[in-house]
């Protein structure tokens, strides 16, 4: 058979299969292009999805670490508050602030009062009150300043979380803008600038030569990737919605140009460059911290005023008996009642840490998401046989910091009578797309 075909080869018309071969090759090439296009889009999709997830988690982790810090501050204020109450009790019962230096044990126990140069309960009583007020007022001023600072920190933290979300998202968005050192070297005006080679090495290479436009965009938060956050003023909060983006194109000479500084990568939704990455971040603008008062813990703090009453009564009675032996009990009782009332008001209003409105931790952590939408745009590329279709590929993601094992920003001391700071640890996770 082979011999037959070989002998009759001359009778065949050559090249008949050629047009079909060409057609099939064209079809296969188009199929390969479509697959390559699909693959490129899949890479974009993975990139933007990674970027959105990284941004959400990055932002949420900033919130988590801030809540830990606020919890520790709460612990500090709780300790301060307990010390304040103890000092006041010491003043009302013993007549001395036990934290002041130079006080002996006997004086502290109130055993040597009769040797002191006091003029009895009429002078001791106002002195005690003034001493207590002198402790109370600075504490309250200090606390409310600290509370305002915590609120402002909360605003800054949301801004920082959004900034972190932006930087994480941009960093993971697969921006493939290249550098063009050779072209810059070629165009650098060596002859025009004196000492130009040194300048080239020390200034140009150090600052620009080694950086792409995107790198500069990322290394300048204020004028670069986080410019849209703007300035945070006390009370204004961080903007709830932030949109930032970077666009770049490749020139015909293979060098790149980008949209740094600022975020001018599109105007009225029309891209100014062949590529851009856009990140939108949505989140709260602040944390509504409130003072946590001692009275919010029910009857427990009110055991103390009872002790104060009997302690103060005994103290004023001891001295009352010296000058006014007959009315001593009555006066001592009145003074003890007044300082007890004062002490009760102090306890009722004494802030000993921070909390959220309604003491609802979950409402302001679990249910407050930081949400991202990352969009990658690439202009269609006509390869002759196939026009690569890109357009915009987007992905969304949300993350939050959440309560785990009764995490709280309230003083950990109140949770278990020990300063177990792990109570302030909030966990971070993705929550899916929140539209």
């Amino acid at each position, binding site marked *: 058979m082979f011999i037959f075909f070989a002998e009759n080869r001359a009778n065949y018309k050559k090249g008949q299969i050629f047009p*079909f071969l060409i057609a*099939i090759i064209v*079809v296969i090439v188009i*199929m390969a292009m*479509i*697959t390559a296009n*699909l*693959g490129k889009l*899949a890479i974009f*999709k*993975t990139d933007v*999805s*990674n970027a959105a*997830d990284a941004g*959400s*988690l990055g932002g949420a982790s900033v919130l988590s670490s801030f809540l830990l810090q606020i919890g520790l501050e709460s612990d500090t204020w709780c300790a301060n508050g307990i010390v304040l109450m103890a000092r006041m009790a010491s003043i009302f019962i013993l007549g001395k602030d036990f934290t002041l230096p130079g006080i002996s044990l006997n004086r502290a126990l109130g055993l040597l009062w009769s040797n002191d140069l006091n003029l009895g309960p009429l002078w001791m009583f106002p002195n005690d009150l003034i001493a207590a007020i002198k402790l109370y007022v600075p504490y309250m001023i200090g606390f409310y300043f600290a509370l305002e600072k915590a609120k402002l920190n909360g605003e800054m933290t949301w801004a920082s979380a959004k900034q972190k979300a932006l930087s994480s998202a941009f960093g993971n968005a697969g921006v493939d803008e290249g550098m063009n050192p050779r072209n810059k070297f070629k165009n650098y005006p060596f002859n025009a600038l004196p000492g130009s080679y040194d300048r080239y090495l020390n200034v140009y290479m150090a600052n620009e030569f080694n950086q792409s436009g995107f790198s500069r965009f990322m290394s300048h938060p204020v004028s670069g990737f986080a410019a849209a956050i703007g300035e945070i003023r006390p009370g204004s909060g961080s903007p709830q919605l932030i949109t930032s983006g970077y666009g770049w194109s490749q020139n015909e000479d293979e060098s790149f140009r980008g949209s740094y500084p600022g975020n001018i990568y599109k105007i009225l939704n029309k891209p100014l460059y062949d590529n851009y990455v856009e990140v939108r971040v949505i989140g709260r603008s602040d944390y509504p911290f409130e003072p946590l008062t001692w009275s919010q813990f029910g009857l427990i703090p009110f055991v103390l005023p009872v002790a104060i009453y009997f302690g103060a009564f005994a103290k004023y009675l001891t001295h009352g008996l010296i000058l006014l032996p007959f009315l001593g009990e009555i006066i001592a009782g009145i003074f003890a009642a007044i300082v007890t009332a004062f002490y009760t008001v102090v306890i009722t209003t004494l802030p000993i840490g921070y909390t959220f409105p309604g003491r609802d931790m979950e409402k302001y952590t679990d249910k407050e998401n930081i949400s991202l939408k990352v969009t990658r745009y690439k202009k269609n590329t006509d390869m002759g046989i196939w026009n690569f279709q890109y357009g915009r590929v987007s*992905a969304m*993601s949300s*993350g939050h910091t*959440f309560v*785990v094992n009764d995490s709280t920003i309230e003083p950990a001391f109140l949770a278990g009578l020990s300063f177990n700071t792990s109570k302030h640890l909030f*966990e*971070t*996770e*993705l929550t*899916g797309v929140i539209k």
Partner: protein
Amino acid sequence: MIYKSKRSQAILDFVLIFGILLVFLVGLVRIWVWFNANYAKRNADYQKTRLIAGKAYDLTAGVYIDAPLELTDDWVFKGKPSGTVK
């Protein structure tokens, strides 16, 4: 007569061979569609694992398990896909 018979033979050959080629081409295109569908499915499946992977306290969750669409006879010969990509 001999010439004419050779020509009709060639036409017969042409129709037969190109019929077979066409069937091969249709099969090829369907396999290509299967490949691309799998490409998209893998990506979609992977994206779905990311949310679980981003959850706390479950280090085993979110591992991507490759579950491609099956290339069945029905898909190649009858054009019926073995699954869908969501």
